[in-house]
């Protein structure tokens, strides 16, 4: 559908509702403490004043929302090839985005937007994080049309480059998703991944909650004196075990829930040589992934996932703003080996080979053992010598040593750098084994460094900087590293390869 975007236009009229709730949310956030006071003193204040006040607030917010809607216009300036957004009630802002700087156009939908039936359009640019455009409420056809118009311009400039010619031939849009991640796969992913992340989230929640209860009731939940009374010391271990098991169960359920909500109905569609991803149960997100902008591709899986033949992928695109760095990663939560190869082929035109394998020196293992086992234990025993109560926990130390030792050993065993003609792959991780894949030409800068006492052992550090983050390898054979750095520099400097 072709639409004309040359004249300034407003969002969908129903967008006022979105603006309204947005503004309301902002105000509630800002006046949260005041609200609390109101609620606490609910009975003391004259109720009529309260109701009138609330009404007034709603009216003001509605007025602001209306003005926001009224003053928000957007259009494309064909002459200067710019996309322009005007906004603001009291402070007017004009955002100008040069069309060929647009990296990505995302169409998202939050729950509210879904109820009303509008979409949000988000324009990502290559320059800085503050220069991003966001249109809160447009209809679906308009969003699609505007998106294609915004991206089409980029195509126009790109076609000049010969390498892009191959993409032109496959311009047929295939609307049928070539990978869709089913509910079952999401369940599998949910029970096998992100233990650490969920666990830390849970811990944070637990502590903030106990802190909260603390403040309200004046009781310290964690260190309550009663605790000792009804838990005999012999039972501490079994209680602890039960507690851990319980936590583990909670983590599993939360994880499952999180992943299903976040990635529900995950579809990947091929579109003009790029990938179109869409997912989400409550908030639907859709993103375009352009192979040439991909910097680091991470493929990871753990033992369970290997048995179930699923793996996770994370794709980092080029970003410039530090702030958006972690948002720029695109997750593909679950796909099988075949699908992974398909995606990799689309991104790299081939499945990356591993090639030469570089192992870390054994000192890496020794040093990490020293840092995470020897030092903490030493500290513990020194303190425990003086504080008698701590001695009771000494029986935990062997478990700690075995547990951490195993993690370190497997982490060391999996720590590898693979170098082939086109790719550099860093493998790491103890439980979740991940491969970070970069193409050689994506390297922006290289740092090599060596501690002076490692000169004799001929080992050192290598860091490859890309526009999507760094890849580092510790304590590899320094002669080999230097040799490869020279080769990479030679290859980067003699070719005009496009890194973005």
């Amino acid at each position, binding site marked *: 559908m072709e639409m004309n975007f040359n004249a300034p236009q407003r969002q969908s009229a129903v967008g006022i509702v979105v603006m309204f709730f947005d503004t309301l949310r902002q105000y509630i956030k800002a006046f949260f403490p005041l609200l609390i006071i109101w609620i606490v003193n609910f009975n003391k204040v004259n109720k009529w004043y309260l109701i009138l006040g609330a009404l007034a607030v709603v009216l003001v917010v509605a007025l602001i929302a209306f003005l926001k809607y009224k003053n928000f216009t957007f259009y494309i300036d064909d002459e200067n090839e710019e996309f322009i957004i005007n906004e603001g009630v009291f402070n007017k802002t004009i955002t100008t985005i040069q069309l060929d700087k647009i990296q990505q156009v995302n169409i998202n939908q939050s729950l509210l937007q879904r109820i009303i039936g509008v979409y949000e359009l988000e324009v990502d640019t290559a320059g800085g994080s503050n220069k991003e455009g966001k249109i809160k409420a447009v209809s679906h056809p308009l969003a699609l049309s505007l998106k294609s118009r915004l991206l089409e311009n980029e195509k126009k400039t790109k076609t000049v480059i010969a390498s892009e010619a191959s993409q032109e031939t496959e311009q047929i849009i295939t609307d049928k998703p070539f990978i869709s991640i089913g509910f079952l796969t999401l369940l599998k992913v949910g029970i096998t991944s992100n233990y650490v992340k969920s666990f830390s989230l849970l811990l944070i929640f637990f502590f903030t909650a106990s802190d909260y209860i603390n403040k309200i009731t004046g009781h310290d939940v964690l260190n309550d004196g009663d605790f000792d009374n009804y838990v005999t010391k012999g039972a501490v271990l079994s209680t602890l075990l039960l507690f851990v098991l319980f936590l583990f169960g909670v983590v599993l359920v939360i994880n499952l829930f999180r992943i299903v909500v976040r990635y529900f109905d995950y579809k990947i569609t091929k579109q003009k040589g790029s990938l179109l991803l869409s997912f989400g149960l409550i908030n639907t997100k859709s993103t375009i992934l352009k192979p040439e902008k991909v910097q680091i591709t991470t493929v990871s899986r753990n033992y369970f996932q290997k048995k179930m033949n699923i793996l996770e992928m994370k794709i980092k695109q*080029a970003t410039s703003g530090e702030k958006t760095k972690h948002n720029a990663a695109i997750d593909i939560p679950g796909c099988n080996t075949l699908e992974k190869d398909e995606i990799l082929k689309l991104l790299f035109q081939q499945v990356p080979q591993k090639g030469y394998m570089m192992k870390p020196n054994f000192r890496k293992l020794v040093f990490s053992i020293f840092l995470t086992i020897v030092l903490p234990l030493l500290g513990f025993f020194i303190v425990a010598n003086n504080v008698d109560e701590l001695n009771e926990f000494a029986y935990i130390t062997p478990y700690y040593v075995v547990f951490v030792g195993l993690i370190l050993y497997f982490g060391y065993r999996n720590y590898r750098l693979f170098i082939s003609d086109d790719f550099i792959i860093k493998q790491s991780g103890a439980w979740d084994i991940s491969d970070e894949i970069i193409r050689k030409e994506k390297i*922006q*800068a290289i740092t090599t460094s060596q501690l002076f006492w490692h000169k004799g052992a001929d080992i050192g*550090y290598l860091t490859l*900087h890309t526009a999507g983050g760094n890849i580092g390898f510790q304590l590899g054979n320094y002669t080999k590293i230097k*040799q490869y750095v020279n*080769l990479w*520099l030679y290859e*980067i400097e003699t070719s005009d390869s496009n890194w973005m």
Partner: protein
Amino acid sequence: MPFWKKENPILGRINGCLRLVISVQLLVFSLHQTQKINMENFTNETIDTTNLPKYEEVAFTSLHPNYKKVVLLNVSVFSVIAIIGFSALVFFNKGEFTQTNILTLGSALLVVIALVFFFSLLSFRKKGFAFRNHDVLYRSGIIATSTMVIPYNRIQHVALHEGLVSRYFGLAKIEIFTAGGHSSDIEIPGIAKAQAEDIKQLLMGKIQKQL
């Protein structure tokens, strides 16, 4: 149209003066610029990886001797502040400290200051830079010596920075930015102002050539 392709009057002028201002040493560099692969005499021989130019054997240029003064001045200011702070602390809490306490703490402070001086000088000596035909190298670090290499065709932009103290000594800092974020930028301090200008123009020329 991307920003770097836009007509920039300042850049244009800088390019204009480029040939005039550039020092002989830098002229040699610019003459050796990237040769575009010519389709007619295109060859594709196996690269002898052992005979590639070795970045680790490059002779590094050390920073300007004046920069040592800048470093010393900075460290001195720091030391003076630390000593004043310490004295004030002792002076206002006379009762809290015994004679031996003051002596041990004072000597500890002096040792720390001496160490800072020592390491600053050492780190000055360790810093060095080199401009090759196709990339820029910067070496730094006392305990771990690290070398960073940025190929010219990955440079996004170049900036010249003059600190207050550095300006007094006629020095400037060159900042070289890539798309790889903060960790992959090179900052070379302690270069004579005129030379820094030359280097900046050389790099600008290289970037323009790429595009």
